């Protein structure tokens, strides 16, 4: 198999003033795959996507989309490309339908019936004649997807498509992205939510502070994931910490707020909980903290608010 590249970015750097938003990154997205760009806020994901769309010029490096660069092809580089950056924006004094109809003008027109079809795909047909100014955030997100589909893209770029949506909206948006991916579209999805990327994507780039921290398949990412973590509350936390020190395959730590965290293989954690019970330490709470992939994400992106739970090397020191 020799899948072709939809996006081929190499050595891309962008600096704003003294801030290096994107630092010499390279990302390749094969045609037909669902690709995630993952990272915390400020990691450089959106800057990268803006450069892909030509909204921002990179200081150095090249971004090829279906083999063409902005310098070579100008706006034609966006042939076959659609999507939105951050939350999609429209003209509030126009209806949803008028917004889409206007955008088709800028696209050189669309086949008859496509506008109605995409409205139907995003389930907005019955709201399309209302002013966008009265739309909810989720409706604007769906209208953004509709505006993208009007271009009949082969590469769909979605930046945080579930951002700001309620749980039902998130579920619907993910289902929509899956449906679109099922049609054979290449999807480049940016997110700060590991669960979302894990659910939807085949391959992923994890960015932090403008650089690439990981690049590979979700399956490969899973093999690197640390043990799952749990939050623990007991009637005698000091005793629980002491018992944790007697179980070498797990780590038990106390965070600055005094809460306990347990990390380790499930069997070892189970054994530790049994030891707590036998030692007559009452369990007040024992809840999963993060999935292993989330934990890995926090490790890779060096999120200080989560690292104590998921950096076993540091945790062990802290437990003693």
């Amino acid at each position, binding site marked *: 198999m020799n899948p072709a590249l939809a996006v081929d970015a190499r050595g891309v750097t962008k600096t704003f003033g003294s801030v290096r938003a994107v630092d010499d990154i390279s990302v390749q997205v094969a045609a037909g795959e669902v690709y995630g760009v993952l990272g915390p806020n400020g990691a450089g994901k959106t800057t990268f996507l803006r450069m892909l769309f030509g909204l921002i010029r990179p200081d150095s490096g090249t971004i090829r989309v*279906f083999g063409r660069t902005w310098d070579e092809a100008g706006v034609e580089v966006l042939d076959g490309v659609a999507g*939105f950056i951050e939350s999609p*924006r429209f003209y509030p004094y126009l209806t949803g339908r008028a917004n889409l109809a206007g955008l088709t003008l800028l696209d050189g027109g669309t086949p008859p019936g496509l506008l109605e079809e995409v409205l139907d795909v995003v389930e907005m047909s019955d709201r399309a004649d209302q002013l966008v100014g009265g739309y909810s955030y989720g409706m604007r997100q769906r209208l953004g997807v509709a505006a993208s589909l009007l271009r009949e893209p082969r590469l769909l770029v979605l930046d945080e498509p579930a951002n700001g949506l309620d749980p039902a909206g998130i579920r619907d948006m993910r289902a929509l992205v899956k449906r679109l991916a099922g049609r054979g579209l290449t999807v480049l999805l940016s997110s700060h939510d590991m669960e979302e990327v894990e659910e939807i994507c085949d391959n992923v780039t994890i960015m932090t502070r403008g650089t690439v921290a990981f690049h590979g398949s979700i399956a490969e990412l899973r093999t690197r994931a640390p043990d799952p973590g749990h939050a623990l509350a007991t009637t005698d936390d000091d005793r629980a910490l002491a018992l944790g020190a007697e179980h070498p395959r797990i780590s038990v730590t106390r965070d600055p707020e005094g809460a306990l965290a347990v990390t380790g293989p499930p069997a070892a954690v189970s054994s530790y909980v049994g030891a707590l019970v036998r030692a007559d330490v009452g369990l007040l709470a024992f809840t999963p903290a993060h999935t292993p992939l989330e934990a890995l994400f926090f490790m890779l992106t060096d999120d200080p608010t989560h690292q104590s739970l998921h950096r076993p090397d540091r945790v062990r020191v802290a437990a003693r």
Partner: protein
Amino acid sequence: MTAVQTSADARAVEPAPAPRRRPSALAALRWEVRKLRAQRRAKAVLLVALVAPAVIVVVIHGQSRPPKDTLFGRFATENGFALSLLVLGFASQWVLPLLTSIVAGDLFASEDQHGTWKTVLTRSTSRSRLFWAKTATAVGFAALVLLVLAASTIVSSLLAVGHQPLTGLTGQTVPAADALRLVAVAWATMLPPTLAFTGVAILLSVWSRNPAVGIAAPVVLGMVMQLVGALGGVEALRPLLVTTSFESWHGLFTQPVFTGPLLDGLLVSAAWCGFTLATAFVLLRRRDITGG
């Protein structure tokens, strides 16, 4: 370099998709006009341009003493042509810069305000084409507003006061038919400096990304120019001011007629338009769209 080791290095490049149907040169213009027609602000400006002159004409005509200290003011209550020229003089002070800036100063900055640059610039229309479409829309609207304002003023003046022969600036009598033609030409000479202010509003709109600046600053600039033009010792500077071009029609109502200021005004306005639009174009072309 943040090396990403991937088998993709060895991959072929997916061939570029078949070209989309290219938007015509007028597509972006149609889109801009469609947006403008949907905005209450534009409709309100046109309504004001249509109604306000009639109100002003009626008010002035109803006064017992004419405003003698203004150009053509002495005859404004007894001659429709003089009254329409009085309104013209007033409009050129700040009304025309304001009316054109309300749209031109908002056209670009409102894309920042609504965060829609990223919406339109991720389609198949280039920045250049969008820029010229917006500029053409602003220019067209400025011309339309001027036309409505002029027509409303002239018609209401003639209906309210009458179309008697006009006494010119050198005391000569201008027959009614000639006076109507000259008044129409005088209003038409407002177009170049009005478009110069349109250019200023576009530049400020692109530069500031703030509709309030794009709308208000050209009016303030116009007032500053009038102040500078009224100062002594700036004779060399005065012809370069856009506001001087607003006065170039005076020579049409003298005996003999002198048209030199009209040509000067045209050239100065063209220079202002060229500078402001070229600067705005470069700013927009080079700008990183980071907001929205």
